């Protein structure tokens, strides 16, 4: 694994790009970029449509890619559905669940206050339409924890949807434990996990986790934009009604009615991004060749360094991460036992995140400023916005040093 594998990092004339916005999207290794080009130059045809050699080849490449993604998360190939991104995955699931099951005011759907809007708004709106109760696990600011969502589950809980890792603070709830608890309370509750942030930083094993559905986007894991993955347990996928209709997802169509294709095609109407899926599967292969252990090790080192450097600055407050600077942690002695991924949100006294990001840009440092599509979480944190630095294994200590200089610069100019 090498930063040289990522062309964009050195494409800035003589300077290196200090890209610390990996939670927004990741940079792509040359192997992925080349695969995209190769596909269009040698293999492009519509998969599942033709019997000529080129079409057979495209179909085979799509099937291989599906196999690669399924092996990556220890699923079966026909449990992998391709969408255009995780957001579409959640929306598709909400629509299909609404079509398949009767949901009414005696039911409820549970999610958390720290969710990305993509795994919050679809459920909120589904509850509005059906009259079901929308139950929210609350964020506790004093110890940076999230209420155990299983406490909100009862015999009428249709869906429990929650994140495996916050895109704001990197907080990683113990989802395996939570899923176990939910199953004991209501084995029929459909458990949906947002793995969009976790997937690039930790091995996801669907058989071990026992969630019903898991969603993530390829572009968060070094693949192309326009490709999302929904994993679903086969029995559930067979039960669910499709809501997106057209070519490829049908078996027969007559004037009066239609029958559906088998899973996963049932949920893949139209022409999907075969080129992107193929290229993104190369990202999976690249990651497998490095090994999660190695990349996690590198990311942990960098995360520790980032937290230490930020912690030295008296006017910076880190959100979570068991940070001493975290003024939310009223009792410095009792550290909470939270786990965190390499995503760090922070606020700088007297400097609005947007201004910090603008000044960081002058140092060729890319960080995110805003509400990170988590407005309920911002409300719970009692801030309008934070700055966020998110690490990948191709970052180095210099990237972090440059961010620190930018923070000091911003505080000098504006503070």
């Amino acid at each position, binding site marked *: 694994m090498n930063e040289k594998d990522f062309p964009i990092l050195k494409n800035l004339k003589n300077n290196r790009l200090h890209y610390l916005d990996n939670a927004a999207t990741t940079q792509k290794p040359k192997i992925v970029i080349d695969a995209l080009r190769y596909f269009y130059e040698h293999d492009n045809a519509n998969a599942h449509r033709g019997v000529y050699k080129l079409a057979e080849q495209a179909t085979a490449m799509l099937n291989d890619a599906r196999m690669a993604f399924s092996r990556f998360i220890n699923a079966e190939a026909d449990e992998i559905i391709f969408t255009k991104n995780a957001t579409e995955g959640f929306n598709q699931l909400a629509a299909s669940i609404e079509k398949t099951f009767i949901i009414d005011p005696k039911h409820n759907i549970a999610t958390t206050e720290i969710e990305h809007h993509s795994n919050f708004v679809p459920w909120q709106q589904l509850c509005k339409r059906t009259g079901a109760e929308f139950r929210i696990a609350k964020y506790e600011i004093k110890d940076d924890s999230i209420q155990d969502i299983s406490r909100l589950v009862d015999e009428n809980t249709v869906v429990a949807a929650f994140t495996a890792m916050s895109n704001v603070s990197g907080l990683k709830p113990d989802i395996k434990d939570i899923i176990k608890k939910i199953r004991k309370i209501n084995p029929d509750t459909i458990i949906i996990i947002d793995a969009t942030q976790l997937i690039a930083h930790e091995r996801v094993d669907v058989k071990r986790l026992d969630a019903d559905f898991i969603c993530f986007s390829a572009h968060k894991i070094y693949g192309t934009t326009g490709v999302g993955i929904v994993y679903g347990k086969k029995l559930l996928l067979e039960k669910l009604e499709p809501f997106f209709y057209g070519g490829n997802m049908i078996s027969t169509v007559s004037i009066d009615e239609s029958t559906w294709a088998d899973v996963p095609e049932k949920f893949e109407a139209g022409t999907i991004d075969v080129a992107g899926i193929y290229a993104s599967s190369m990202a999976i292969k690249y990651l497998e060749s490095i090994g999660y252990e190695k990349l996690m090790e590198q990311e942990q080192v960098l995360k520790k360094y980032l937290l230490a450097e930020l912690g030295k600055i008296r006017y910076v407050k880190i959100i979570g991460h068991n940070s001493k600077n975290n003024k939310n942690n009223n009792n410095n002695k009792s550290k909470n036992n939270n786990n965190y991924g390499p995503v760090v949100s922070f606020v700088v006294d007297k400097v609005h*995140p947007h201004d910090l990001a603008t000044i960081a840009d002058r140092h060729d440092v890319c960080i995110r400023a805003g*509400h990170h599509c988590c407005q309920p979480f911002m409300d719970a944190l009692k801030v309008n916005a934070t700055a966020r630095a998110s690490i990948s294994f191709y970052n180095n200590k210099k990237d972090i040093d440059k961010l620190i200089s930018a923070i000091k610069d911003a505080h000098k100019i504006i503070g």
Partner: protein
Amino acid sequence: MTMDEIKDPIYREFLLDHYKNPRNKSIMKNPDIRRLDNNPTCGDMIEVFVKLDKNMVKDISFQGNGCVISMASASILMEELKGKSLDDIKKMSTDDMLKLLNLKLTPTRVKCAMLALSAIKKGMMDYEVMKGRAL
């Protein structure tokens, strides 16, 4: 270019002064126009208040939280709009706003600069609809 402009393309003394010492930043009692607006991508929020005398701005103020550009622009705009007519405000364009600030901005930051004016224009529309209903 002035020394100020050479030093920093955005964070100039003039702008920082309005950010740190905002003029017209207060909540107005009994305004004729009151409107909230925000810039969702970056967490800027503003509420504007306008007191009218016939169709002229008699008093104007804002409350809010946001980046240097959004807050300083609000402060600068409030000073500019005192005594102006609703028609004058309707005619104000993005270019007029940027000229007022003497800034060249990227599209994302233009949104910050336009936040206060956007809130006022939306407030004006609400006011006119209400007036129309009253008639």
